C-alpha cells in the first residue's frame, strides 16, 4: 500500500549505508588482521593493507552518510520516521535539533562511531607500522557498534535498534484506532495517516540546554579516544612488540585523558545549570560510570610515564589501558541496559539490547585479559625493586590509589547489577552521597599530597638534601596559605561531625599544597620553561579542582531556608527541619539571607509552555541588586506538573542559584470561597484564619481618585487594619459607592494574606463587612535558592588541568617527531 506524504528515500538510503557500514567494517578488520599476520610479505604489507584502507574509508563515508541522513530527517520534521517523531518537534530551536539527535540511544551510538572514524583516519595517517594491528581492533569495534544500528531480526532475537524505523512499523500506532481503516485496529493503517501526525514528541525539556548541545559530542570523543590506547595495548600484546608502542600511545592517552575529563565535567556543568538537585555532582550511577574509566586512565597514563622513564610498571600499563576501555563498555552497559532503573535519575530505559551489550563486554574483556595473562611472562620487567626515594615508587602508589578508588566507586555503583544477578534487594545507604564522600575525602588527602611532592623526587633515586632544598619554600608557603584559608574562610561543616570536618581541613591543606608546589615547580624544577611544564600545570589545575570541590561543597548555603520571617520553633527533639523552600507572593518582598527578594512578574515563551519568572534580589547591606529568571515548563505536553530550569547569578567568588520548586495550580484552585458577612461597629474586631481585622474608622467622601467616580457620587470608606499573625500589619480601604441611589462595593485585597474585604452596607454606625479568603487571587511561586561559594575555582581548575594535559600531549608529539628525524 502507498501512504500519502511519506518520504521513503532517506530511510532507504539510511538502511543502505547501515548495511554498507556493517560490511565495510568487518572487511576492514579482516583485511587489517591479514595485513598484520603477513606483515613481512608484499601481499600483507601492500594488498591487504590497501584493501583494509579502502574498506575503512567506505566505513567512514557510510557512518557520516547515516549521520547526515538522520539529521536531514530530524531537520525536516519527517515524522514518518520514529526517531524524528520521538525526539523532536516543530517548535524546537535549531541548536537543539542536535541535542535530540543524541537524546536517543541510536544517535548516541552513531556519535560514538563517528568519532572512531575520525580517530581511525588520524591513525591511518600517523600509525606507520602500528596501523594494521591497531586498526584491526578499531575496525572490529566499529563493526560491533554497527550491529547496534541494524535492527535486524535473527530468528526471534532483535539485533540492535535502527534509527530509520518508520513510525508505522514501530508499533506505536498499532492500537491507535483512528489511524486505521474503518477505525478498526485489525485493519491496515489509513493511507493518509500522516495527516494526523501534526507534531513530534519533542526533546525532553531538561535536555533543552546549551550544555546538552556540546556535552555529548565531547564526552563521546572522550569515550571513543579510550579505544586507541586499548587498541595499542592489544596490538602490542598480539604482535609481541611490548615496548615500542609506548612512544605513540602516550600522546593518544593524554588526549583521551583531557577530552574525557572535560566531557565529564561538561556534564557536571549541565547538571549544575539545568538540574535542580542543587549541585554539579551527585554520585549518580551514570556520572560514576564515566568517571571510573577516567580514573583508571589517570592510573594508566602515570604508569606509562613510569615505564618510559624507569622501565618499571609495563604490565600495569597494559592492564590499565585494557580496563579503561572495558569500563567504558561497562558504562555503556549500565546506562543503556536499563539495569539502573531504580537507582539512577537519568539512565536510558531498557532498549532490549542487553544480550548484545553484555556480549560486547565479554568479547572485549575476556580475550584481552587472557592475552595479557598468557603474554605476561614475555613482557619485560625490571627485577630490581624501586627505591623508596624514587619518583616512580610514589607515582605507582598514586596510580594504585586511583585504580583502587575506581574499583570502589564501580563496586558501589554496581549494586543494581549485583541485585539482578543474585536476586537481592540491596539499596543505597541512607546518605548515599556521604557514603562516597567519606571515602573520597581520604583519597583526596593522599592524592593531594602526592601531587604536591612527587614531582620534586627524581626517577631512580633522590637524595634527601636535594629534595628538601627545593621543596621547603613551597611547603612553608602552602602551610601559611592553607592556614589563612582555613582561618578566614570559616570552613565549618558540622553535618557529619568533627572527624569529617578534620578530614575536610586536611584535604584543603593537601589541595593547597598541590597547587602551590606545582606552581613553584615550574620555576624550581624546569626553570620557568612553560613548554616543559605541562605536567605541573595540569597538576596545579587538579589541585584547584580539589580545592573548588571542597570549598563549594562545604560552604554551600541554602538561602531560602528560615528566611520567611516566621520564627517557627520546632523544638530540639522535633524531626522537623527548617524548610528549604520559600513562597513568594507577587510584588511582596521577603527576606532571604542578606537579600530582600521579590517575585516581580513572569513572561511566557512565545512557542512553548515555558514560563520565565522574574525574581528580583536586593541586598539590604550594600547596593547589590539583580534579577534572576528561573523558568519552568508547566503542564508540559499535557502532563500535569512542573519541570524547572534554574538560573544563577555569577560572581567571582560565588554564585547565587535559584529555581522554582512549586507553582499554584490554577485548574485546581477554582474560586469557590464566598464573602462571609460580619455585622460590626467601628473599633470592633473580626478574626480570619491568619489573624484579625479592626475597623478603624468610617468616613464619607465626595471625591475619589477612582475610575468611574462621577461628581455627585458619594462614597463610604471603611478603613480596616489587618493584623496578620505572621506577616505584620496592613491597612485596607473598602469602598461603598452610591451613584444616585445605586450602590456598589469596591473591595480591597490584601494579597499576601489572600484576603478580600468588602463593605456590604452601612446603616448609621453599624457596618457589614464581607470577608473572603481565597488562594486563587494570589500569584505566587515557591522557590529554593542556594549560594555556591568558590564554584569558579572548580571550573577554572578543570580548564587549567585540560590545558596542562594538552600541553604535555603537544610536547610528546614534538619529541616523537624529533626522534624520527634524528
Amino acid at each position, binding site marked *: 500500500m502507498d501512504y500519502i506524504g511519506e518520504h521513503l528515500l532517506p530511510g532507504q538510503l539510511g538502511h543502505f549505508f547501515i548495511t554498507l557500514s556493517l560490511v565495510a567494517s568487518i572487511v576492514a578488520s579482516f583485511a587489517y588482521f591479514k595485513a598484520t599476520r603477513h606483515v613481512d610479505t608484499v601481499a600483507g604489507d601492500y594488498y591487504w593493507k590497501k584493501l583494509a584502507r579502502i574498506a575503512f574509508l567506505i566505513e567512514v563515508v557510510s557512518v557520516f552518510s547515516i549521520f547526515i541522513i538522520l539529521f536531514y530527517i530530524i531537520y525536516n520534521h519527517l515524522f514518518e520516521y520514529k526517531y524524528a517523531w520521538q525526539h523532536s518537534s516543530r517548535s524546537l530551536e535549531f541548536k537543539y535539533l542536535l541535542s535530540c539527535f543524541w537524546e536517543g540511544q541510536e544517535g548516541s551510538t552513531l556519535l560514538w562511531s563517528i568519532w572512531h572514524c575520525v580517530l581511525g583516519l588520524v591513525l591511518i595517517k600517523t600509525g606507520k607500522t602500528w596501523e594494521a594491528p591497531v586498526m584491526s581492533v578499531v575496525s572490529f569495534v566499529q563493526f560491533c557498534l554497527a550491529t547496534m544500528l541494524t535492527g535486524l531480526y535473527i530468528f526471534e532475537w532483535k539485533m540492535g535498534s535502527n534509527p530509520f524505523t518508520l513510525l508505522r512499523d514501530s508499533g506505536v500506532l498499532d492500537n*491507535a484506532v*483512528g489511524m486505521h481503516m*474503518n477505525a478498526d485496529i485489525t485493519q491496515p493503517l489509513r493511507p493518509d495517516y500522516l495527516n494526523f501526525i501534526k507534531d513530534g514528541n519533542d526533546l525532553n525539556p531538561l535536555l533543552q540546554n546549551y550544555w546538552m548541545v556540546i556535552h555529548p559530542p565531547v564526552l563521546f570523543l572522550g569515550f571513543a579516544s579510550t579505544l586507541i590506547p586499548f587498541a595499542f595495548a592489544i596490538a602490542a600484546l598480539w604482535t609481541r612488540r611490548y615496548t615500542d608502542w609506548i612512544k605513540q600511545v602516550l600522546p593518544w592517552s593524554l588526549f583521551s585523558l583531557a577530552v574525557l575529563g572535560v566531557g565529564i565535567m561538561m556534564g557536571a556543568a549541565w547538571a549544575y545549570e539545568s538540574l535542580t538537585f542543587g549541585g554539579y555532582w551527585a554520585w549518580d550511577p551514570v556520572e560514576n560510570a564515566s568517571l571510573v574509566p577516567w580514573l583508571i586512565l589517570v592510573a594508566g597514563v602515570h604508569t606509562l610515564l613510569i615505564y618510559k622513564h624507569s622501565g618499571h610498571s609495563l604490565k600495569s600499563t597494559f592492564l590499565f589501558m585494557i580496563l579503561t576501555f572495558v569500563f567504558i563498555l561497562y558504562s555503556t552497559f549500565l546506562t543503556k541496559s536499563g539495569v539502573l532503573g531504580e537507582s539512577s535519575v537519568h539512565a536510558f530505559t531498557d532498549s532490549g539490547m542487553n544480550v548484545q551489550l553484555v556480549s560486547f563486554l565479554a568479547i572485549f574483556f575476556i580475550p584481552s585479559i587472557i592475552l595479557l595473562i598468557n603474554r605476561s611472562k614475555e613482557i619485560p620487567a625490571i627485577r630490581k625493586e624501586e627505591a623508596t626515594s624514587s619518583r616512580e615508587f610514589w607515582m605507582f602508589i598514586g596510580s594504585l590509589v586511583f585504580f*583502587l578508588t575506581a*574499583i570502589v566507586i564501580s563496586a558501589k555503583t554496581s549494586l543494581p547489577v549485583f541485585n539482578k544477578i543474585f536476586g537481592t534487594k540491596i539499596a543505597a*545507604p541512607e546518605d548515599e552521597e556521604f*557514603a562516597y564522600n567519606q571515602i573520597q575525602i581520604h583519597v583526596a588527602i593522599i592524592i593531594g599530597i602526592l601531587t604536591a611532592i612527587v614531582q620534586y623526587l627524581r626517577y631512580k633515586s633522590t637524595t634527601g638534601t636535594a629534595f628538601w632544598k627545593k621543596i621547603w619554600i613551597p611547603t612553608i608557603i602552602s602551610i601559611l596559605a592553607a592556614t589563612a584559608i582555613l582561618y578566614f574562610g570559616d570552613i565549618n561543616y558540622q553535618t557529619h561531625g568533627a572527624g569529617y570536618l578534620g578530614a575536610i581541613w586536611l584535604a584543603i591543606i593537601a589541595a593547597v599544597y598541590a597547587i602551590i608546589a606545582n606552581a613553584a615547580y615550574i620555576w624550581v624544577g624546569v626553570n620557568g620553561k612553560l613548554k616543559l611544564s605541562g605536567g605541573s600545570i595540569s597538576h596545579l589545575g587538579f589541585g584547584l579542582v580539589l580545592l573548588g570541590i571542597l570549598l563549594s561543597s562545604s560552604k554551600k548555603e541554602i538561602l531560602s531556608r528560615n528566611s520567611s520571617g516566621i520564627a517557627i520553633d520546632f523544638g530540639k527533639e522535633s524531626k522537623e527541619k527548617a524548610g528549604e523552600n520559600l513562597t513568594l507572593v507577587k510584588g511582596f518582598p521577603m527576606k532571604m539571607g542578606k537579600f530582600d527578594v521579590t517575585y516581580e512578574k513572569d513572561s511566557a515563551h512565545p512557542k512553548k509552555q515555558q514560563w520565565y519568572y522574574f525574581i528580583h534580589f536586593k541586598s539590604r547591606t550594600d547596593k547589590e541588586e539583580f534579577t534572576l529568571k528561573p523558568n519552568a515548563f508547566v503542564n508540559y505536553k*499535557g502532563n500535569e506538573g512542573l519541570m524547572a530550569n534554574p538560573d544563577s547569578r555569577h560572581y567571582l567568588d560565588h554564585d547565587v542559584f535559584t529555581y522554582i520548586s512549586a507553582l*499554584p495550580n490554577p485548574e485546581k484552585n477554582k474560586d469557590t470561597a464566598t464573602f462571609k458577612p460580619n455585622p460590626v461597629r467601628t473599633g470592633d474586631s473580626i478574626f480570619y484564619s491568619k489573624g484579625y481585622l479592626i475597623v478603624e474608622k468610617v468616613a464619607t467622601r465626595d471625591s475619589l481618585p477612582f475610575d468611574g467616580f462621577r461628581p455627585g457620587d458619594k462614597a463610604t470608606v471603611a478603613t480596616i487594619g489587618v493584623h496578620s499573625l505572621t506577616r505584620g500589619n496592613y491597612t485596607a480601604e473598602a469602598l461603598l459607592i452610591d451613584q444616585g441611589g445605586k450602590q456598589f462595593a469596591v473591595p480591597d485585597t490584601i494579597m499576601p494574606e489572600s484576603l478580600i474585604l468588602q463593605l456590604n452596607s452601612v446603616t448609621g454606625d453599624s457596618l457589614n463587612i464581607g470577608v473572603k479568603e481565597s488562594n486563587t487571587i494570589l500569584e505566587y511561586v515557591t522557590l529554593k535558592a542556594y549560594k555556591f561559594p568558590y564554584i569558579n575555582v572548580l571550573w577554572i581548575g578543570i580548564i587549567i588541568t585540560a590545558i596542562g594535559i594538552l600541553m604535555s600531549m603537544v610536547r610528546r608529539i614534538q619529541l616523537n617527531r624529533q626522534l624520527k628525524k634524528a
Partner: protein
Amino acid sequence: MKKIHIILLVGIAATIAVLISFLQNTSTYDTVDTAMSKPGKFVHLMARWDKDSPLEYDALNNPNYLSFTAVDTLGKSVKVIYHQPKPENFEISERLVLKGKYQDGIFDCQSIQTKCPSKYKDDMEAAKKNVQMSQAIEPKP
C-alpha cells in the same frame, strides 16, 4: 617480598574493608508491609501515588510540607509526609522510590525519586492523544 607488593596488599585490604563497611550501611528496597515491619529503619519504599486519596500541599501556608498516600503493588497503602514540594515528574511517574522511615503510622520521607514511564509507554500515551485528535478531525466512515 617487595615493598610494592606489601603496599598492594594493604591497598586491596583497604578496598575490601571499605566495601564491607559500605555493605553494612546499605538499606533495602521494601514494600509497605515490610517497611512497616521495621519502624524507624531507613528503607527505599517502592510504591506509587494513590491519586484517589487527597494530596495536601499549600505553598502559602507551608511550602515545605507535602502529604499524600502511597500504595504499593500489593495494594497496601501508607500516608507519606515529605518536607519539600512535589518533585519533578511526580504526577506522571508510574512508580516512586520513597526514601525514608516508617514511624508512628506515617512514612517520613527524606527524598523521592520519580520513575517515568518507559519510553515505549510514553509513545503510547502520545499516540493516544494523536488518535483523539484524528478522531475529532476525521469524518465518521
